[in-house]
């Protein structure tokens, strides 16, 4: 499928949210995984842009580094965002996007490109996002591929069903959910309504928490705060302090990340979730829509504290 008018900076990206509010700096490992014998082999030109949590574009940094084929680099976000840096965020966390633009496309505002080439360039490497603190001797993160999303040119319906059975919350542990609303389409303006259901280990649905995520923005949700505000934190802990959080949106795809923190050590567990096709590789179409509708009826309606 030929994608026309595609901004080549969005072919290969590394998108993430910073975690300064919790006391961590952010750095990323970027790589040029294309090998010399690949027909796509090229240098990658690294540039950067940042947005507020509400999706307001704060600024950008022109290409500042070139990664040759087989090369690696590590970039500290603080080198580009903060007082005296190219982008000022007034101390707020940002949604950052590192763009890794193939050399042959640098300087071109748009190109026509086959969708297969986009994914061929993405699939050669994960990008590693790492949260770190010298004071706490912590460095932890996660790897993923930042695929183009929420792009009307790619067609198809967009929805998110998140099931994250790694919800750990107790007196010294909190699980933060970070939801990114990203697009590879410049005119993207879709705010995504995302509903969360917090379910204890025994299947009791203890709290619902609807959020909205602005285009090119992000939202961080403290599970402990949600459970406390719903008056069910003690109940959740009494039931084991672990469970599952389910998220659902029928109009838009968010990137759901899970970051569990131990308050005592400041240690972090970070990971993404797995989409339904990891469980049922053939899941999709009308079957998926019907099931999602039932999940929505069961988990996102009525009273939250309603064991099934």
């Amino acid at each position, binding site marked *: 499928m030929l994608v026309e008018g595609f901004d080549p900076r969005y072919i290969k990206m590394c998108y993430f949210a910073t975690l300064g509010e919790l006391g961590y700096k952010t750095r990323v*490992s*970027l*790589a040029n995984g294309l090998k010399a014998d690949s027909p796509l082999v090229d240098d990658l030109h690294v540039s950067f842009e940042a947005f507020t949590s509400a999706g307001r574009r704060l600024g950008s940094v022109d290409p500042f580094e070139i990664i040759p084929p087989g090369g*690696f*680099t*590590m970039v500290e976000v603080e080198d580009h965002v903060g007082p005296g840096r190219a982008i000022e965020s007034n101390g707020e966390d940002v949604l950052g996007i590192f763009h890794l633009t193939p050399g042959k496309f640098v300087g071109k505002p748009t190109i026509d490109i086959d969708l297969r080439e986009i994914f061929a360039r993405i699939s050669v490497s*994960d*990008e*590693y996002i*790492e949260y*770190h603190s*010298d004071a*706490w*001797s*912590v*460095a*932890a*993160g*996660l*790897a993923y591929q930042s695929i183009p999303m929420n792009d009307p040119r790619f067609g198809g319906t967009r929805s998110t*069903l998140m*099931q994250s*059975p*790694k*919800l*750990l919350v107790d007196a*010294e542990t909190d699980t933060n959910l970070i939801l990114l609303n990203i697009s590879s389409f410049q005119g993207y303006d879709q705010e995504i309504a995302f509903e969360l259901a917090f*379910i204890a*280990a025994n*299947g009791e*649905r203890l709290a619902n928490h609807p959020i909205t995520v602005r285009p090119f923005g992000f939202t961080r949700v403290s599970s402990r705060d949600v459970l406390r505000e719903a008056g069910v934190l003690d109940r959740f802990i009494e039931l084991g302090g*672990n*469970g*599952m959080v*389910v998220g659902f949106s029928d109009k838009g795809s968010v990137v759901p990340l899970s970051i*569990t923190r*131990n308050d*005592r*050590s*400041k*240690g*972090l*567990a*970070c*990971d*993404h*979730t*797995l989409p*339904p096709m*990891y*469980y*049922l*590789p*053939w*899941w999709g179409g009308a*079957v998926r829509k019907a*099931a999602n509708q*039932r*999940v929505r009826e069961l988990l996102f309606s009525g009273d939250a504290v309603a064991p*099934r």
Partner: protein
Amino acid sequence: MTTSSSLRKRGVTMARRAVNPRGKLPRRGYEHCFIEEEGVHSRLHLHHFYSMFLPDVNEPVEAHVHAYAADGKRLGSVSRTLQPLNALVLPMTDVLRELGASATLGSVAVDVEPSEAYARKLVEIGPQNAMAQSPFWMGYYDDGGSVAYVHSIDQFYGTVFGVGRVANMAYRARSRRSGDWASKRLIDTAGLRRADAYLVNHSSSAGQTTIRWRAHPDGATLAEQTVTVQPHGAVRVGVTAADVANASAPPARLRLEIDGLLTENGKPYVMLRYGDGPFSLHHG
């Protein structure tokens, strides 16, 4: 899709139909590394995912956990019943105790077996030869407040659950060795006390490979070990602050290489310890 791959796919579909005439639901498991050494503990994060896909069936399912020691020896299996929407954190210490085993390193595979009603419904609404898979998260922790979790990155090769012996061969995923692999992640050495790579052999045949920690960017080898990993076994190859400090040019960063992963996506787990802080762990 090329004509030959289309024909091959059609052939596979027909063969599978022939060996599974009653239309049972085949299931592939996933496999993780477990660590129970030097104060590190592991726990499985399991959940009743069938209830997320077929919420109206509303029946329990059985999670089967198969454990192997680092040398590939099968330690046995334990099972847990999961009610709809239930999640279970299962400590590896419980699994090992139940099996009467004392392994400190190894692998654990999970197959979540649906009830007959779920299986029947999935076969009914799914495509021909529909399958189910059981990915899960593995958590790691210690008394010092370290916390980590990793999603499944590769399957448990060699067995397909839910079907007979002949169908097993038709539905089995082929484990292919991957080529040389280099982690795309750079590891900062400032304050690094130790970095350990844990490699699991997800396949059903032994494999030999070399695990190497390199300085970045000069590429000098800091630690290297050639290992033979038994089927479903695991090994650890680490590098210490002393290895880094004793390098001819102490590097600011490290990276990890493997001369051929043992399966297609069998990337190693990387555990880092900085100063006196908690460990972190993620796949390489």
